Structures are given as structure tokens and as C-alpha cells.
């Protein structure tokens, strides 16, 4: 090993979308299909230049349905694939999102959240697609959704999104709100930095022994690339371990349960959150995305005024980080959940609240970010 390796450091002023592109390329993304939409367009724009330079593929599709279709196809053929969109396009992707879940195709979908419903507020932020990411596609299913609040996290969580999708053979949604997607901050990227990159597990058996949807202790079957000689059937119908449609209850039940199990037995791996001064806090703010930044400011200002305020920042939105939320519900007297929607995560917090902890919400739906002062005012109002 060369110990005197030169550290190549890049200091850049990047937008959230640009950092997500850097993260995707670092994770090994080699295929992008998408349809441009504000506020996610920069991702397509930059990848249309960068991917061909790296021998990857960029396709602008006719719409978002086809975009995710192309991404699923590319992933089945072995590529790490991604698409990027915003609310209206994410609605169109729901059908294929379900397909990727049932066929267990790894892929990453960036949803830069703008105001809705429908075309809504193209250039203004919101956090109103949180539940859509969870339940937008029909059927009982698990999902992983991540939500960055800084430019550094856009980079890191995009890499994580690819890792989780490859590790658990599941589509991962990256929910970036418009503020973070378009915000620019300084980020330092070390080109030879050790970054954990996970690649899907490939079958080690010869093609004739390969069982494409076999249960394993991890719940994740090995995945062969199309074209590598492993012939198997991919369908959106509920299938048996060989990939063929089944209507036998004794095959359906273990299949659906395995889909859930592969995520639920790895909660500790996929649920990432950060606590700031929550240990002695009477008041804890649970926040995510750009609002988590306002929350940290509000907590710092509150501490200056003698209020013991802490922040639990959720980097993973789904699966809901129940154990970490329960911990702050046990230790705090009051929990505040500020969100730029009518209360999508606060309902989850209320759901897991077993004790008498008071939960208050701040719901802002006017297309602007919740300010630290608004959080502080709410704290003063309820305490």
C-alpha cells in the first residue's frame, strides 16, 4: 500500500441536486432515465453530461412512467440506476415503484419535493410527499425513504440510498425538499476517501441451480444480471421462489412476509437519525429536511433563553424510526413536530406515543420554510 498517497481534495460550492449527482456517481450509478421537472431538473441536466463521459447511459424518456420503467430494466441488467423527479412525476412513477418492490429491483428515486397537490407550486418548497413515499403505490409493502437537510447529507445519503437498494433489493426514495435541492453550501470531497459501497450479491451457483427468489436468512435472494446466462422470470404478479405467478396461500404468505422482513430485521442499519442535546431536554423538536435546520437554530436560541430544548433529526423517514422517537418521548415533557405539511410525520409520532408526553405540531403550508422564530413561538405558547 502506498502510504504517501496524495489526498486529492475538492472544495466545491454545490447545490443539493448537484451533491446528489456526485453521491450517485461515487456510489457507481451508471444509468439514468428521467423527465425534467422543477426542482429536480439539475440532476438530469448534470447527469446528461457526466454519465456519457463515464461510459454510462443517460436517457430522457417520454414521461415519468417510462423513466422508472427504463431504470428497472437497466437495474435488472446489472446497472446501478436512478431517476429524479418531483411530486407530479412521482405520482406517475407509483405504478412502477410497486413493480420494483414486488420484483425486488434495486433502484434510487429522487423526489425533490415541491408544493402540491397536482402541479402545485413548481418553485416553492414543501414536505408534503412524505406519506406518498410510504403509501403512494398500492399494496402492502415496505419502503426506504431518506431525507437530507444539508448539502453534505445530499451526497452521503445518496450513496446510502444506493447501498440500501443494493443490499436489500428494494427501491429507495430520496426525499429532498426544494430548499435543500436548490441551496448551495460548501462541501469538501476527498477523492480517495474510503466510502462504503455495497454491490448486490450475485449468485455463486451455476445457472441451472439458481432459484431467483429463494428465501435466505437475510431475506434477500442473490440477484443475477439479465444476460449473464441465468434465465429467470420477472413479474408484477405475486410469484413463487422461481419467479412464476402463484395463487397458493402457502407461497404468497412467506413471500409477502419476506419482503417486510428484509427491511424490518435491519432497522438498525437503515434508520439513521441524529440527536442534538436531547439527553437533558424538556422539549424535543423532531424534524427532518430543511426544517431540521430551523429546529437546530430554535433549540440554540431556546437554550440561550434558559429553555432545555433538544432536536431529533430524522435522516431516515421510512421505515419510521420508532425506537429513537420512543426514546425522546420517554425523556421529554413536550415534543414539537414542525413540518411543511398538514402533519404527516406528527401522526406517526402520536401513534407511537405510549405515555403522557404532549405532542404539538407546527404545520406550514404556504410554500415557505418554517423559521426558527415560529418554532420558538410555538414552544413559548405551549410551555
Amino acid at each position, binding site marked *: 500500500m502506498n502510504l504517501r498517497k496524495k489526498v486529492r481534495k475538492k472544495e466545491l*460550492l454545490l447545490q443539493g441536486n448537484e451533491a446528489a449527482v456526485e453521491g450517485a456517481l461515487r456510489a457507481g450509478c451508471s444509468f439514468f432515465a428521467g423527465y425534467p421537472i422543477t426542482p429536480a431538473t439539475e440532476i438530469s441536466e448534470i447527469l446528461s453530461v457526466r454519465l456519457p463521459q463515464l461510459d454510462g447511459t443517460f436517457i430522457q424518456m417520454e414521461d415519468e412512467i417510462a423513466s422508472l420503467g427504463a431504470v428497472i430494466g437497466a437495474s435488472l441488467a446489472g446497472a446501478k440506476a436512478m431517476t429524479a423527479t418531483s411530486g407530479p412525476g412521482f405520482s406517475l412513477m407509483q405504478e412502477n415503484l410497486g413493480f420494483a418492490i414486488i420484483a425486488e429491483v434495486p433502484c434510487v428515486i429522487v423526489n425533490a419535493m415541491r408544493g402540491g397537490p397536482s402541479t402545485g407550486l413548481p418553485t416553492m418548497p414543501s414536505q408534503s410527499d412524505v406519506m406518498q413515499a410510504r403509501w403512494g403505490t398500492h399494496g402492502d409493502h415496505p419502503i426506504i425513504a431518506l431525507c437530507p437537510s444539508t448539502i453534505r447529507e445530499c451526497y452521503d445519503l445518496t450513496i446510502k440510498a444506493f447501498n440500501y437498494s443494493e443490499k436489500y433489493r428494494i427501491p429507495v426514495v430520496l426525499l429532498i425538499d426544494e430548499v435543500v435541492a436548490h441551496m448551495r453550501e460548501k462541501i469538501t470531497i476527498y477523492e480517495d476517501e474510503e466510502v462504503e459501497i455495497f454491490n448486490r450479491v450475485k449468485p455463486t451457483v451455476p445457472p441451472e441451480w439458481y432459484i431467483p427468489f429463494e428465501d435466505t436468512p437475510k431475506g434477500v435472494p442473490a440477484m443475477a444480471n439479465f444476460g449473464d446466462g441465468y434465465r429467470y422470470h420477472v413479474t408484477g404478479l405475486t410469484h413463487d421462489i422461481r419467479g412464476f405467478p402463484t395463487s397458493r396461500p402457502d407461497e404468497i404468505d412467506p413471500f409477502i412476509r419476506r419482503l417486510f422482513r428484509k427491511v424490518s430485521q435491519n432497522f438498525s442499519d437503515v434508520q439513521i437519525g441524529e440527536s442534538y442535546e436531547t439527553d437533558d431536554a424538556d422539549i424535543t423538536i423532531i424534524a427532518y429536511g430543511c426544517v431540521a435546520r430551523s429546529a437546530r437554530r430554535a433549540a440554540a436560541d431556546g437554550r440561550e433563553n434558559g429553555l432545555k430544548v433538544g432536536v431529533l433529526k430524522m435522516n431516515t423517514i421510512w421505515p419510521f424510526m420508532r425506537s429513537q422517537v420512543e426514546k425522546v418521548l420517554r425523556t421529554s415533557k413536550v415534543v414539537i413536530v414542525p413540518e411543511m405539511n398538514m402533519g404527516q410525520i406528527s401522526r406517526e409520532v402520536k401513534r407511537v406515543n405510549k405515555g403522557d408526553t404532549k405532542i404539538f405540531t407546527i404545520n406550514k403550508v404556504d410554500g415557505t420554510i418554517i423559521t426558527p422564530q415560529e418554532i420558538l413561538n410555538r414552544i413559548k405558547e405551549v410551555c
Partner: protein
Amino acid sequence: MSYRYDIRLSGSGGQGLILMGIILAEAIGIYDGKCVAQTQSYGPEARGGSSKAEVVVSNAEIDYPKALKLDLLLAMNQKSCDDYYMDLKPDGILIVDSTFVKQLPTQRAYQIPFTRIAREKLKREMVANIVALGAISKLAPIVSSKAIEAAVLARVPKGTEKLNRDALKAGVMAAKKVKKVSFPSAPAEFEDEDT
């Protein structure tokens, strides 16, 4: 002790405010080495409508990324000057493009006709934003003119370097000549004590 310096560049869509914000953030963050967060808000129109870019500067990690109380406000049209003047700190700096801003909310404003300078001296109205950046580097203590020049040249299209360098110089010159603004000598906290 960490500090915060909040800047808002405002005007109408098409005046190049977001590009200004990016260049300013790059100058302060990359070339001057401070922490920066740059955000923007604009309407769906390519031109017209109101547009603003904000840059928050600190020596520590920045939490809330949007501007709170403004240390520096640039208003490139009358509407933005009227809308945002109230967000300015008592000792905050107000710079207006006097080509468009005719009614001033205060006497303590730097009035420079950025657009007229761009149109008449440089023959290209679109560099008004770069002229304004030149003036900011002279009038505000937050960024060095060296850093601004490096950031401008790194961001503008190839072949326009001379035009943009001239625009920066014109901005610096205009700022040197502008009428000095004096601020009240008593700090804001002291004034508040009686009330």
C-alpha cells in the same frame, strides 16, 4: 464566538440575482474560506416576477439557511426595496440600483445606477449584476475584491472574461465615488433600554 452575516440580493427575474448569489457565495466560501449557505426564491417566469438570492455567512456551521435580519440588502428594483427594507438591521447596509429605485425609504442608502453603468459604459445591460458585485466588494466588509474577481471569472462563460472584469472594475469605481453613508453612533441595544 460564532457570527452570522445575512445578505439578500433582490430585484426582478432576469436581472441575474441568483447568479450573483452563487458568485458571492463561491467568493466567500471557496476563495475566502468561510462557511456559506446560499438559497433563492423565484417565480416560474424566466423574466419578470420577483426574484431574490440570499447568502448567509458564518465562521461556524450554518443552521437556518435563509437570511434572518439583514446585514446587507441589495435592491435592484423599487418593489424589492419597499418589500425588504424592513428586514434590514439598524446598522445594515442598503445598496440600491438607482436606475430603478427612485423612492428611498432612508437617507442611509448607497445609490449607484448599476443598470445605467452597464448599459452606457459597458454597452451590455446584462452585466449590471456584475457591476453590483464590484460595488459590494468595495462597500461591504464581508468579501475581498480578489475573491470576487476569482469567483466571477470562474463562473462566467468563456470569452466574456474581459467584459466581466471591466464590469467589476466599473462597480468598484462607482462605489468609490458614491456618497458616504453614516450610521447612528449608539448601538441598537442601547437605544432599546428606555422603551
